[in-house]
């Protein structure tokens, strides 16, 4: 056996939602302290801190957090990797333990987004005197959003989904809407989700259209929240109490990929190739087959995104994502439950926290501690996030009967 496995010892997520009465560091502190307590350890056991907060990437959030929970002089890595920021913080700690520099570490993801509006607009403002002068790598003279197509998030992911519909039969507005129907239904069992309200397929399809085929109820909300995880080396875990060992969850794969060059990606991000690459690598490393998965938390920033990731993560037959949702494969009582937390669509998407929140969700099921939404007998699960630009994080978690000695 490999003696250098890394395990999850403790984890915590705050309630996701609008937290106007606390600040970013309050949220990070709550999840960090929560994860430490959950793991039965203290900040003095922690030898490395990975911290992800995308919109505050230059604010030294990790160090700000230390000042609230314990300044012990350990290395802090403040990471930013778009929507894969949380997964990157997690993996930074994982790698440090793998490298033998630490035997225990803490990963924290946090974001306070407020009512952030549509993300992805960027570009040139029209302030002051208007004079068209080419600038930037495209020699553009004005903001091109809405003039040369759209780069807004609901539209980017709508186009990613419609591209799949172009390539495969049996995929359309209704299949995409069914994804949101499922995730809203799942969220009613998750007290930590931003929204916990079920909607009918009709209500979802008739909600305000944002960017066809994504209606408002098929888009993730801007959310505040934080999640954290304590990771430990296998060697260290063996020295901890029976209860700590019994609740520990093995991290069987931790993978990060970026997008390799593909023809169309310069105009429409290719969210498929890097996800497929990450998934394949994670399955290879862990020896887990997609069919073995008891649950999956994947990056459903929009309903159109979730559908294509069924295929990218190999949860369905190639090209069969439409059929997979039609036969309720990803529902909690289906073939491979997907986003039983409610997913980003309903649970919310505090960007820096998301990649650790999905670890929290899967680990909680593997421990048999997910309450009303528990997937009975769950032994292995996968988490996936993707950040445009692009970065993809995939983790596979397993619950062996006991820590091998």
């Amino acid at each position, binding site marked *: 056996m490999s003696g250098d496995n890394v395990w999850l010892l403790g984890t915590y997520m705050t309630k996701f939602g609008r937290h106007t009465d606390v600040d970013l560091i309050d949220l990070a502190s709550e999840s960090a302290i929560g994860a430490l307590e959950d793991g039965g350890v203290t900040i003095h056991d922690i030898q490395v801190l990975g911290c992800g907060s995308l919109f505050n990437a230059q604010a030294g959030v990790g160090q700000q957090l230390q000042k609230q929970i314990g300044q012990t002089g350990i290395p802090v890595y403040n990471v930013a990797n778009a929507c894969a920021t949380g997964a990157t913080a997690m993996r930074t700690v994982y790698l440090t333990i793998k490298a033998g520099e630490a035997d225990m570490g803490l990963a924290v993801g946090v974001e306070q987004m407020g009512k952030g509006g549509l993300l992805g607009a960027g570009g040139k403002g029209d302030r002051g005197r208007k004079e*068209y002068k080419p600038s930037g790598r495209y020699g*553009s003279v004005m903001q091109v959003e809405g003039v040369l197509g759209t780069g807004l998030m609901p539209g980017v992911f709508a186009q990613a989904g419609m591209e799949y519909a172009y390539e495969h039969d049996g995929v359309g507005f209704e299949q995409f809407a069914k994804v949101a129907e499922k995730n809203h239904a799942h969220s009613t069992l998750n007290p930590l989700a931003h929204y916990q309200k079920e909607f009918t397929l009709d209500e979802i399809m008739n909600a305000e259209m944002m960017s066809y085929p994504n209606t408002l109820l098929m888009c993730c909300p801007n959310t505040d929240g934080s999640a954290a995880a304590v990771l430990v080396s296998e060697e260290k875990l063996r020295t901890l109490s029976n209860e700590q060992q019994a609740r520990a969850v093995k991290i069987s794969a931790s993978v990060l990929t970026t997008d390799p*060059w593909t023809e169309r990606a310069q105009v429409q991000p290719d969210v498929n190739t890097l996800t497929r690459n990450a998934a394949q690598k994670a399955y290879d490393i862990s020896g887990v087959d997609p069919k073995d998965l008891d649950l999956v938390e994947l990056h459903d920033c929009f309903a159109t995104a979730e559908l294509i990731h069924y295929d990218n993560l190999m949860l369905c037959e190639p090209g069969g994502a439409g059929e997979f949702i039609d036969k309720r494969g990803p529902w909690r009582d289906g073939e491979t439950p997907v986003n039983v937390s409610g997913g980003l669509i309903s649970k919310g998407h505090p960007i820096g926290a998301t990649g650790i929140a999905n670890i929290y969700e899967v680990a909680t099921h593997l421990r048999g501690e997910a309450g009303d939404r528990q997937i009975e007998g769950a032994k292995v699960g996968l988490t996936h996030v993707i950040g445009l630009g692009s970065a993809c994080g995939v983790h596979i978690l397993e619950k062996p009967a006991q820590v091998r000695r």
Partner: protein
Amino acid sequence: MGKQIPIVDYLVIDEGSPRLVAWEAVESGALFFDRRNADAKSGTKEFRRKQLADEGVIRSFTIVQRGVPGVPVPYVSALVDLDGGGSVKANLLNCPPDPEHVKLGMRVRMTTFVAGTDDDGTEAIAFAFEPAA
């Protein structure tokens, strides 16, 4: 009529019909609309200009109903695979912006329109696509 300037430099509007011109990596054939330091496919540094076709098919689209301030909605954003290579994103014009009329796989051709006028009266010319008859 005042001056005109292309909205982006890969749209060429001087002499002849408006056309898209990309950077083609000599080694790999990869196409880029922006200036690149090296080819993202092969890592080599040699590029040449390549004129792209003005017709193609809609590979994907979305109909934007909520966009940025100042841009009228709804509009169709389409990903177009051009005949002979190259993919581009642009708006679809002269087609009702609803899923009954915009179809995946629909043949389209490039057109141009005035996207704005600056304080010197210079018009920004943008490209778009419209259904090919």
